[in-house]
């Protein structure tokens, strides 16, 4: 039986390790690489190598960075007293795009999910508690996702932070800004109603 030459097979196998890529897509990508100009392929390979070699975790906030401490942790203009806890580096980007938050971050790298084998010790909770215990933080905002795992993680952290003199808050859920009430689904509306505040 005829098979692909060994280097192609190997490349296909590598692509298949990526999420959402099956054997057919992997083969298509591999053959596309074959048809690319050599400098492009080299750049691609270099980019892959760089994510591994040039990125580390920030020693303070655990976000991914080229240089530890990261640029946000080094920024003297930021408010040390407010700490926003997020699940992923992508969430830091999302928060930063708002230009509304001027505190510091802590990146957990995941949420507690026993079904996926992720316990409290597998994400950066220990680092967070240590940080809260050793620096002068007044408020910790828990901005984990509003799903079962994110809520469980938020609750776990809030329990751990009980002994410390910090205010622990949870981000609000509810109506998206600019949405009309009549188009909101029941569940979102109920959540928004739950989190109502006095004017």
């Amino acid at each position: 039986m005829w098979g692909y030459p060994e280097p192609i097979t190997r490349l296909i196998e590598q692509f298949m390790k990526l999420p959402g890529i099956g054997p057919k897509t992997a083969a298509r990508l591999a053959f596309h690489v074959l048809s690319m100009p050599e400098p492009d392929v080299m750049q691609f390979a270099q980019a892959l190598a760089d994510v591994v070699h040039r990125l580390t975790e920030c020693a303070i906030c655990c976000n991914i960075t080229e240089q530890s401490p990261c640029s946000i942790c080094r920024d003297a203009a930021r408010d040390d007293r407010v700490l926003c806890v997020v699940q992923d580096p992508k969430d830091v980007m999302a928060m930063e795009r708002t230009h509304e938050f001027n505190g510091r971050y802590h990146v957990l790298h995941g949420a507690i999910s026993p079904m996926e084998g992720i316990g409290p010790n597998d994400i950066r909770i220990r680092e967070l508690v240590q940080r809260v215990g050793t620096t002068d933080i007044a408020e910790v905002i828990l901005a984990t996702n509003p799903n079962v795992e994110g809520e469980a993680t938020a609750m776990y952290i809030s329990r751990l932070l009980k002994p410390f003199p910090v205010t622990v808050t949870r981000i609000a859920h509810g109506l998206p800004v600019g949405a009309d009430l009549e188009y909101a689904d029941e569940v979102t509306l109920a959540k928004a109603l739950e989190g109502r505040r006095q004017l």
Partner: protein
Amino acid sequence: MKIRELTLENFRNYEDQTVEFQDGVNVFIGDNAQGKTNALEAIHMLAVGKSHRTARDPDCIRAGQLRAVVSGAVTVRNSQASLRVELTQGGKRAFVNGLSQAKLSDYVGRFQVVLFAPEDLQLIKGGPAQRRRFIDMELGQTHPSYLYHLGKYQRTLAQRNRLLKQPRVDWDSVAVFDAQLALHGAQVVCRRAQFVRQMRGYAREVYRQISDGRETLDVTYQLSLRTPDTEPASLDLSRVDDVRAWLEEALDHRKDADAAAGHTTVGPHRDDLAFTLADQPVHVFASQGQQRSIALSLRLAEIDFIHAETGDYPVLLLDDVLSELDDHRQRNLVMSMKEKLQTIITTTSLAPFHGMLHREMRLFHVHSGIITG
């Protein structure tokens, strides 16, 4: 609600068939295995986008064909709509007035049916899981937020159970799931109990009609845990906060049992519906015929429930149920339904319709995938 016209293309044993219904009673008559149930299945599909018989949509595609289409013209609260469901091997699409609906949940709920099929006897004879599914299906159709809480509850339960399967259980982690489990669990319990309270009156009345008032039916929502120390003696199932507090307490109380079992032993995933007839538990004391009548009463109670919730009566689909009731009960049933409802019935015999005038019902003959009026 009414269905005025139904068209089947390559659906089950139908190649291309259009049927026009009348407002009152419509009867499909034919021998076994001719396609009577398939026609009801199609109407069910048109209403909820799913078959009542199979979870695999492609099963409904006629052998050798790539695509099945069910379409129909319906009247809902005096306005007309055309509905259409297309099934292929790869998936399905639903249309309202020619517009494709992005999600099936956007489609369902418009046109409602209540279907009673012989397998509904399992509501009485089968396990608690079947009775819970009955409640979940009903509440899901009328209250989308119920499905939100149920989904969250099930997800949280799965996470918690995984923790309980560890050789050394990490109770700190279990505790953070308990809070959510109690939060969503209380919502599930209270909504179910409320639903059962509503259904109770309706089912009792229907049962009284079918049985000529000889017996009194009672239906109650039963919490899973009934040990003396956690017995919720005075727990009011209409107070979400109380139920939540009780659930949290019960979860804590059952820690050791849960760890030993490797899963959560208390909560709405273990609750049940309890039926009694003249104060006797039904699964022990009721006869076959009585059990059938109870299952039927429960289904027919849905009609009143949907009417109370939406202000409109659903279309009633009865799949071969008359043959299971005695003459007396058959007649009571046929008489009670012709008043307010559009009903579509399959039968192998016309005997139960004796005494009904011809203009009161429309008869369709079904023979090897062809329906003639």
